[in-house]
Structures are given as C-alpha cells and as structure tokens.
C-alpha cells in the first residue's frame, strides 16, 4: 500500500517544480555530495607492530608497578569457620538464638603491620547478589522518608504480628552480626584490647545522603510502630547506643552490609585501627587473639567466615589480579 501512496507524493513535488522552471539540481553541499572533509585512518604494518610493542611495554611497566605495590601489602586472614565449630553447631539450631557463644582464635604476627590497619570480615559462599535478595530493601525507608514503606521488601516485609519491619527486607535481615574484638597479647599476662574505630567504614555518600534516620527527637520513637527484623537480636535504634551519629539507619556496620557485594565471596570493612598508644605505628609484631562473639550462622549453607587484617597502598586492596594480568601480555 505505501508504495502506491509514495509515488503520488513524489510526482506532485516534481510537477510543482517543473511548472516554475526551477532547476532541480541538488545542492552542492559537502554532506549531500558525501564530500565531507575527513581524516582517513591508514596504518602500515610497521606502525601496527610498533603500536603493539608500545602497548606491550606499557602493560609490562604498569604490571610491575602494580605487582610491587601489591607485594608491599601485609595481610592476615584467619578462617574461623572450623575453629569455632562448636559455636557453628550451636547456631545451626534456631532455637538457640539467645545463647551466647564466644570463640577465641590466637595467632602470631611475625612482622609488624605499619600504617593504617583495617579489620575485615570475609564471607565465603554468601550470595548477596541474588536477584530477589538485592531487590529486597526499601530505599524510601532507609532514606528516612517513610519508615513504614516496605513495598519492595518481600519476603521480610512485616513481622508476624503485622507490623512493618524496619529496616525491612532480606538484606537487612541477614546482616552480619558477629562481634570481633582483637586482643594484643603483650605478654602472657597483659592482654591489651586493640583500639578500633567503628565509624568511617562506609562511603560518605551512603552515610550522609543515602541513609538517613527518620526525623524525630528520639530515635526509638521514630521507629514506633515498626518491628525489628526477625534475625536481629535488637532493634535498629539500638545498633550503637553510645554514638547517636552511628545509630539507627546510619550505623556504619549496617550501611556497609547494605551495600551488597557483587560476588558470593566478599570481605567487608568492619573496623579501623585506632592509632593510639602502642598502636601509633600500626600493629606491632607479636601474639594476638580474636575474641569472636559467634552469632552469624553460615554452616547451614556451607558458607565460611574469616577475619582479615590488612594494610593498604595507593591501589587499594591486596589484589594481585590486575598486576598479574598486566604483566601477562
């Protein structure tokens, strides 16, 4: 059909022009004549080969730099899944939720860790990237706009008695809740608790923009009419009762957890070393032990937990990957 109509249009246009004896010579513009000035990319074999060579050199150099900086990082990782087997067993039974279980892991630091030292917890086989898991949160709630907005939070939307959960959703509910304390065994009798800072572990934008407590004088009243997530031992407004700037939705541990990991094995920043006293330089060499309050069950899904102490360089974490791949070509 459209053919039929098309020519009619063309014909009429032509006719009009003919009547005026107008020249129908097309315009002499660069675009219409396809004569736009242009640069033609033409490379010879030697140019290509030298280009290859240059890229190779660049990669090699980059790789070596990355490799060296990665080597300078000191890192201690202790997997405590097996070491705290009794606790793990205890946690497999949901009925034991109110029983405390502590677990102590000693290790020896042969060399001191200089500079800033970071304490991470690391999970293996925990899928924070499942489609339904990632969606199961309420940003409206977390930004403090409406505490009772739980639309997207299935399957943890409301508590058994129908109250909206705050913070709702699978992510919040599954928050990592082991407490890890590092003790420095100065000598056999003196154990010094290594001072750690629990703030500034999350992105600034998360802490000050994306997560906000609902505006109320009293935090607990702000959350009135909501329920705590089922897995949590205490409500959100009791996450850090000592520091109002780290309580509720703007608790750093909470925010860090809420920034879901891309892969099932991940580590998340837990504490930063507070460099005072013995630890001004960093962590001195010596014997240490972690006291872990074991709350977070992982054995049910064959997951593993580890705790990591690490220093950092300009390129961040201890990823050898980039370095190695850069060296490869």
């Amino acid at each position, binding site marked *: *059909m*459209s*053919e*039929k*109509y*098309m*020519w009619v249009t063309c014909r*009429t246009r032509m006719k009009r022009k*003919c009547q005026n004896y107008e*020249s*129908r*010579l*097309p*315009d002499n513009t660069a675009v*219409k*004549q*396809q004569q*736009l*000035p*242009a640069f*033609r*990319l033409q490379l010879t074999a030697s140019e290509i080969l030298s280009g*290859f060579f240059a890229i190779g050199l660049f*990669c090699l150099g980059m790789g070596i730099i990355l490799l060296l900086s990665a080597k300078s990082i000191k890192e201690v990782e202790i997997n405590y899944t097996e070491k705290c087997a009794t606790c793990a067993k205890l946690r497999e039974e949901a009925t034991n939720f109110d029983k405390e279980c502590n677990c102590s892991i000693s290790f020896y630091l042969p060399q001191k860790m200089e500079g800033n030292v*970071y304490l*991470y917890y690391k999970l293996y086989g925990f*899928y*924070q990237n*499942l*489609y*339904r898991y990632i969606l199961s949160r309420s*940003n409206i709630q977390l*930004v403090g*706009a409406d505490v009772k907005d739980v*639309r997207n939070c299935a*399957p943890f939307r409301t508590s058994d008695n129908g109250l909206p959960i705050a913070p709702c959703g699978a992510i919040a509910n599954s928050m990592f809740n082991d407490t890890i304390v590092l003790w420095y065994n100065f000598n056999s009798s003196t154990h010094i608790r290594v001072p750690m800072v629990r703030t500034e572990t999350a992105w*600034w934008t998360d802490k000050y*923009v*994306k997560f906000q407590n609902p505006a109320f004088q009293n935090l607990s009243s702000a959350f009135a009419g909501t329920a705590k997530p089922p897995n949590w031992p205490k409500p959100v407004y009791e996450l850090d009762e000592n520091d109002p700037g780290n309580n509720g939705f703007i608790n750093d541990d909470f925010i860090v957890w809420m*920034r*879901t*990991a*891309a*892969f*099932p*094995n991940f*580590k*998340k*920043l837990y504490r930063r070393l507070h460099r005072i006293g013995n630890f001004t330089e960093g962590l001195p060499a010596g014997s240490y032990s972690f006291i872990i309050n074991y709350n977070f069950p992982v054995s049910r899904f*064959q997951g593993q937990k580890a705790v990591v102490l690490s220093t*950092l360089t*300009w*390129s*961040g*974490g201890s*990823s050898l*990957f*980039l370095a190695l*791949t*850069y060296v490869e070509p």
Partner: protein
Amino acid sequence: CLLVKTSKYNALNFLPMNLFEQFQRLANAYFLFLLFLQLIPQISSLAWYTTVIPLMVVLSITAVKDAIDDVKRHQNDNQVNNRSVLVIVTEKWMNVQVGDIIKLENNQIVTADILLLSSSEPYSLAYIETAELDGWLSQIKITELGLLFLFFFSGEVRCESPNNKLDRFTGILMYKGKNYILNHDRLILRGCVIRNTDWCYGLVIFTGPDTKVMQNSGKSTFKRTHIDHLMNVLVLWIFLFLGCMCFLLAVGHYIWENNKGYYFQDYLPWEDYVSSSVFSATLMFWSYFIILNTMVPISLYVSVEIIRLGNSFYINWDRKMFYEPKNTPAQARTTTLNEELGQVKYVFSDKTGTLTQNIMIFNKCSINGTLYGMHDDRIRRNKEKVDFSYNKLADPKFSFYDKTLVEAVKRGDRWVHLFFLSLSLCHTVISEEKVEGELVYQAQSPDEGALVTAARNFGFVFRSRTSETIMVVEMGKARIYQLLAILDFSNVRKRMSVIVRTPENRILLFCKGADTIICELLHPSCRSLKDITMDHLDDFASDGLRTLMVAYRELDSAFFQDWSKKHSEACLSLEDRENKISIVYEEIERDLMLLGATAIEDKLQDGVPETILTLNKAKIKIWVLTGDKQETAVNIAYACNIFEDEMDEIFIVEGNNDETVGGELRYEGRTATMKPDSLLESDPVNSYLTTKPQPPFKIPEEVPNGSYGLIINGYSLAHALEGNLELELVRTACMCKGVICCRMTPLQKAQVVELVKKYKKAVTLAIGDGANDVSMIKAAHIGVGISGQEGMQAMLSSDYAFSQFRYLQRLLLVHGRWSYNRMCKFLSYFFYKNFSFTLVHVWYAFYSGFSAQTVYDTWFITFYNLVYTSLPVLGLSLFDQDVNETWSLRFPELYEPGQHNLYFNKKEFVKCLLHGIYSSFVLFFIPMGTVYNSVRKDGKEISDYQSFSLIVQTSLLCVVTMQITLETTYWTMISHVFTWGSLGFYFCVLFFLYSDGLCLLFPDIFQFLGVARNTLNLPQMWLSVILSIILCMLPVIGYQFLKPLFWPVSVDQVSATGIYPNRIHDPLTSRRSAYAFSHKQGFGALITSGKTVKAKLPKRNSFHYKK
C-alpha cells in the same frame, strides 16, 4: 466522488491505526510480548521501563515518520482536490462525481479519468500532455461525439471495471438508441495536462482510486533485499541461541537451587508459590529470556531503515547523477533496497531508449537506386552542412551532409520528389504551428519524426492535417491532398500505408515498412531496382542504421471505391475484425513500385560503451533484452562493448523447436567450445545436478575457456524456457560474456529475469525506459527506470530512476558499494555490540546463583542501544567511505566482494558472535578480577555490586566505542562528534542518574546514589577499563590490519592500471539492420476520424447519467 484520498490517517484515528500497523511487524510484536512477560512479577527480572522506553522511542520514531508522510499526502490531496473545475457551476475537484460533465480549460491538470465529449479545436481534437504518465510530450485525443451531448442528456455509459491498463479502455455510450464505441483514445487519464485547447468538455468516468493511474501504482510487489532475508534468518538463529542459553541457565539455576539455594533459605526464603527447584528453574527460563532479549536488538530494524533512508537521500542529492538537459536528478523511489545495489551480478538492459537515445537522425537514403548520404563518419565531420536556405520552413536543427541530394531535389528529379512526397504524406504525425512558419511535429515515434522532418527540410513540408486532408508545401507551393485511408502500422504487418487523392485527382497509395515485408509486395517490374536497393540496405545495416523501404502505387478510382467498400464492411464486422481488416489491407498493398529506402541512425547515449566496460570489469554481466530485431540489437551490442571483436565466438540460438534449441544450447554452445567437459559426469556442476537438489537450488559458477557471446531469439527462447532446457539455457548463457535476447515480449523479459533469479541466486537489476520493460523491472531485484524518451511508465514501477544509462555505474559502483559496505559494517557492529552487552549477564549467572541478576543498572540497559551506542553506529553507516568515489570507479574490481556477499554473511555473523562472546568474557572477568577481594585505598568498599556494574558498563562502552573507531575509516567531523560525544554523553547521564537529587526524589527507581563519584575516581577502575580495552582490541587490530598482509584478497591488491582502451568499431561481417519502428498501433485510426464502428463490449461496469 472525486475526492482524491491518498492519505491513510486523520487526526483521530492516527494513534490507534498507526500503532496497530506497527505491532503487525514481528519485531514490535515481540517486544510487546516481552513487555507483558515483564509485567508478570514472578518472572520479571528487569524493570518494566527497560523495554517500554526503547519500545516507545522506536514506535514514536516510526510514527513520526509515518505522520510526516501522511501530512505530505494530506497536503498533496488538498492541493489536488482544491483545484477548481467548471462543472457547469464551478466546483472543487473533490466534489466532482462520476457521471458529471466537466469543462476543462487550457493548461488544466486532469485529476480523474475523463471521457472527452467535445472541444474547442476544429475536428474536435484535444491536445494533452501526458508527460506525467508516459513521458510523451503530447497526444491528441479525439472527441468526435460532438457538442450536442452537452445540452440534452439522457445517456448511459457502460465500460469496463477499473483496471490498470493505461493503454486500454473499452466502453460504449448509449444515447438515443444509438451506440457509440468508446476506446482509450477518447479517455483522458488523470495526471494529463490540457494543452493548446481552449476548452473541452468531458464526462467523468473513473475517479480517485479507480483511475487508471492509481490502479497502476499499487500493483508492484514489495521487494526485500538479501540482507533483509539474512537478517530475518539471523534473528531466528539468535532466538534459538537465546532459547538454548536460557535453557542452560535454567538448568544451572536448578542445580544451584538444589545445592545452595535450598540451604540459603534462612536468608532468602523461596517465594510461597515456588514449591521445588524445578518450578523455580522454569520461572528462571523466562526471567533469563527477558534479560537476554537485548541480543535481538529492538533498534535494529529502525536503525536499518534510517540508514537506508539516508543512503537513498544521497542518491537523490547526487549532482553527478543529475541530467542538466532534462532537469532530472536521480531518484531513489524505493528506500529499502540500497545495499542490494552493491551486490548486483546481472544487469538486464533494454536497448531502445536505454542504451540508445531513441533519437533518430535521418542519415542516408537510397532513392531509385542512387545512394545519398556520407559513407564515413570521419569525413562527415569536416564537411559542411547542406544549406537549406531555399526552404523557409526548414527545421534549423536538421543537418545533412550530402549536397547531391539537395541538388537532385532542386533539379526536380521526379523520383526524389516522389520519395519525399511519400515521406511527407505517409505518417501519423501531427503538426502544430503556433507562430507562422514555425512548425512543431508531434510524432508517435522518433523514427517517424525524423523521416517527416527530413522531407520537410528537403522541401516537402507537411504543414497541417485534418481528419480528411493533408496540406503539404511542396517546394514552396501549398497543395492539399485528400486523405482517403490510413492503413495503420501493426507489429504483424510491419508497414503502414496511406491512400491520398492528389489535387490532380490521382489516387496514390504510399507505403513504408520493413524491407523483408515490402520486398514481397513489390511489383515484379522493379526487381533490378530492388537488388540495388537491397545492396544499399546492406550497407546501411552494417553501419548500424535502421532502415525502412518506401514504395508507392497508383490506384484507379473504381478499384479504390470497390476496396473502400470492403474496408468499411470489414471495419464494421463484429467478429474477427482485425483479421478481416488486415486481409483487406493486403488486397491493396501489393504491386508496389519501389521508391527507395531510408536509413536512420539510432544514437547511443553518452558514455554507454565506457559504462559497460566498467561494469564488465566489476564482473557484472550485462544482458540486453530487446524487442528489436536481432541485427539491430547485435549492432548496438557491438557498438556499446557488450560484444567485442576479440570474442572467441558468438553463438546464435534460433532453433524453432525444443530439440534444435536444446542442441544449440547444449552441444554447439557449451560442449563444443566453451567448456568441452561440461557434459561429462566428472564435471562438478553435472555431478551436483545429478544429486537432484531441491527445487530452489543454485547453479554454481562455471568458467568457460574463453570469452563468448550468445544471441537468442524470442521464439527460440520460448522453447528454451520450457522444462529442462531452462537449465541448459542458464548454464550456457551465464558462461557467456554478453547475452543478447532479441524479439522479446515483455513477458519473456520478465521470464528471463526470473530464470536467472531462480537458478543463480544472484542479485539482478533490470534497467529500461518503456512500458515493455515494466514487467522485467518489477521482476528483477532492483528495477531502474530511465526517465527518457519513450515513456515514464517504466519509471513509475521502478525502484530507482535517472535519465542516463551511464549513471548506472555511479549508482552501482559508488552508491551501491558504499551502501552495501555501510550496511554490512553496521550489521556486524550492531550484532557485536549487542552480544558483548548481553552475554556478560551469562557469565555473571555463574556467580549469582543463576538468579537472573543483571550486571548493569537497569537504566544502562534502557539507554544502551537507544542513546549511548546508537549515534556512533548511525554515523558510521551514514558517513563511512572505505575508499572514495574516484577509487571505486577507477577500480571496479572493488565491487566484487559485494556480489559474493563477503562482508556480511552467516560466517561473518558467527565471527561477530564469537567476537561478542570473547569481548563479554573479557568485559566480565577483568572487572571481576579487579574488584574481587579488593578495597579502596581508604579501606572502603569497591567490590560491591553497584561499583562492579559501573565498572563493567563503563568498560563495555569504552570497548564498543573503540571498536567503532576501528571500523570507521573515514573520520568526518560528524563521526567525531557522534563517537566521542556519545561517550561523553554517557558520563554526563551517569552523573545525572546517580546524582543525589534524582536518587533522593525517587529512591526506589534510581538506586545507584553516589556510585559514579565513589568509583570513577579509583585508579583500579581505570586500570581495569584500560586493560579491558587492550585485551578486547589487540586481537581485533591484529586480525584486521595484519590479515591483508598475510592473506590478501583482491580488494587489497588492486592494480594501478585503469585506462580504458579506446576501441574503434570495425564490423567484420555485414549485418542486416531492419525495420525497427518504435511505433504504437492504432494511431492512424485516430486521424481518420468519424469512422467508428460498433463492436461487442464487455458489460461489466455501467453507470447512468441524466440531466
């Protein structure tokens, strides 16, 4: 009602109708289906807007295009409908109805098919210009029914139902018990213009869509290109691939749910409706189907259309295809076939008006055994033109170079005078004399015009005619001849005669026609003269001239009276009228006295031989399909390089039955010379054919051992086109360098095209200018119309139109090649970028529990095809030029890859797929390696999902942009702006989408707050992007630039010799040219008016009118 309505929509129904039409397209329907899938919450894995927004954009682009088209149509309709016309009271055209009597005035455009009733001109003639319909400048229509009808009406017209035959109309007008026969001579078609006629009255017969022109325009079939078909096949492949992928991922999900997901339910319990991992996997199949749908890109079809439209505009805009004398630019009438112009393998060309100018020049003549006119062209150039100043009415444009003829005229040579008198009387030309002494001839065919003009210049000026008389100014003296009869031309008779009564009351018959015919009708007494004349004719023929014999006969009055009676009886007979008339004609056309012969040069168009040589170099085979005689066609074939003197042999197939034709094709042609072993079992083609492939099979290329030509006659072709000879014909003909098919009917032309299409699976192009080429233009993949002398009907059904044959090389070698290359580059790149984009999800599935989690932000998915990557690829496919036009014309060899479809085929597609898989692999695992277990330098998060997705999408965009810079060979400003602009735009959009304001406003829709700020400043991220680019690009660069060094193809080693040999044609044998009259039958009857007869009429459509 005469309201012309070509528009489809109005303001109210536009939206529903347009949407309905658009969703009829498979692709759009598919995305609608996808949208519904996404609305099912159980399987939705992407936000609904990822599909809705692109779909809306695609639909609205198409809708806007349709709307613009329709607005134009509305304007057009309004313009046509609002022209005023006098329907006794002035009305607008749109109010005119069938059965109305209307008055048309000079220079008015007719917008309905109108039966002429009367006119202001003497003898009720009306002059119309039909340039819009068939390119003829003017025609005469007859209106002898007389004015009297106008005022007392109660008649009835019965006529055929609306049809598309422009040159046929049968009807009958019943008035006061009398029947008047109506034929197409009395019908003025829509689109004609009234000229030189003060007024005329007409009866409206067909209006609007029933008009012949409208009926004619809608007929052509919808043509699709090979790339279109390929694209559909590939989309199907992609679907299958998609299905497999989804199935595998669903299986993966099942396994994962069994091993992990089931135990992970503490943290993420299954949905209530999920009872088992099998059910969950089934849902997951659809979820992945939604995620991976971007493999079939929604914008593919729209982009392809935009590209084709752009490339069509280039053809319209090309100044080098603009023909100044006719003020006609080239015209791409179809915007969907561009890339196929770059793949043409066979060109089927008409001869007359296409290769030749269809301008006839009276060159030589032989009168009573004396040859006039120069023998050699080279001498002619130095000679002076003959001075015609003795004749005031001479046409100044006419030139002749032999003085002896003028001298003979001045001397008063009786035979010369009679010869020119016969030329000035025996024709159907109409003269016009607006200014005293300035005669303009309106000839039916250029041959006739040339002859009458020649007679005019030599002093026998045909000045005017009425239906009964012809006025001729003979050497300054006006004489009036009474026109007694015109024995009209027909294809069978191949001659025409007039019978006139001279002022001296002698009755003379003048006849002109084909030599073979006239020879048999001659009186025995002029045998010796005949022999001499035949010698002259041979001379003419060897020069490639078209010849006619001229003869006369003196009739005695009684004999004529007797004959005249028989004639009118024959005319009135109801059955077998034509046959009876021709018998009557034969009775009088005998015992003719030979006067002489004329030779007319059929001029080649400019640049035809060079064009054909260039096309030959591009391995394009050119077949000439003509209705002309063999000799004429062969002469032209030599003149324009289709046949060369160096050819090893030229086969002529002229058998009259299946066996001889088969033998000629099989043995004489192929076996004996071209390819001696082609009948053996061992021949690959034979062994291929013995395997009995299914009907749509393709005959492989065969290489002959030399260069050959083939000439085949229409009647032999009729046999060759039957049954198993088809194969022989195709095999033999396709091995020949040049093929001439002569004496072809329009249908046969189409059959030959269909034959090659069927067995060779090659792209065919038909080029022609006349109504007889319409069928082949429609049959071929690409039809090209020459808007030339013979008519515009070919143009109306063509896909491309221009006015000179030589533009064909530019259309194919420049525009076609570019379009093809651009389209191929576009498709390769387009598929590649979507594979790289989509398959990353598949890799991620292995790390995200096959949970249909996407890698990218939903907004990135929404905008990727639509915003971030659309402009660069459009820029590439609209502006790229791999070599410039000079080079592509200079090295026609560059055209070959297109013919074999080397740049985009299934193999290339698989390459794209593999390339895409590799890229997606790199694009996933490099960022993964980078972020895995990694933190920022302040110890904070980097391996979170959002940062990862940002890194991947940035890498992806950088990689595909780099890829397009590699593809681009021609960097214009626009390419730079598009390519780098799109990349820059991505970052702007990124910061906008991830900005505080937007995310706080809609926290649930824009979730990536602050990711851009926190991630884009990380050195790891940029190192990862650079690494991805390097890893993705290096193999490609290596392959692209090093391939020509190690495996060069013809394109890369074009030699630097591009000089065309200047050939001087020297025919070896004398060839007989013959009567080739591009003449329409039935014009004579028009002139001898008032003798209409009753005939049986189909009574299909009738209407009444009363007044």
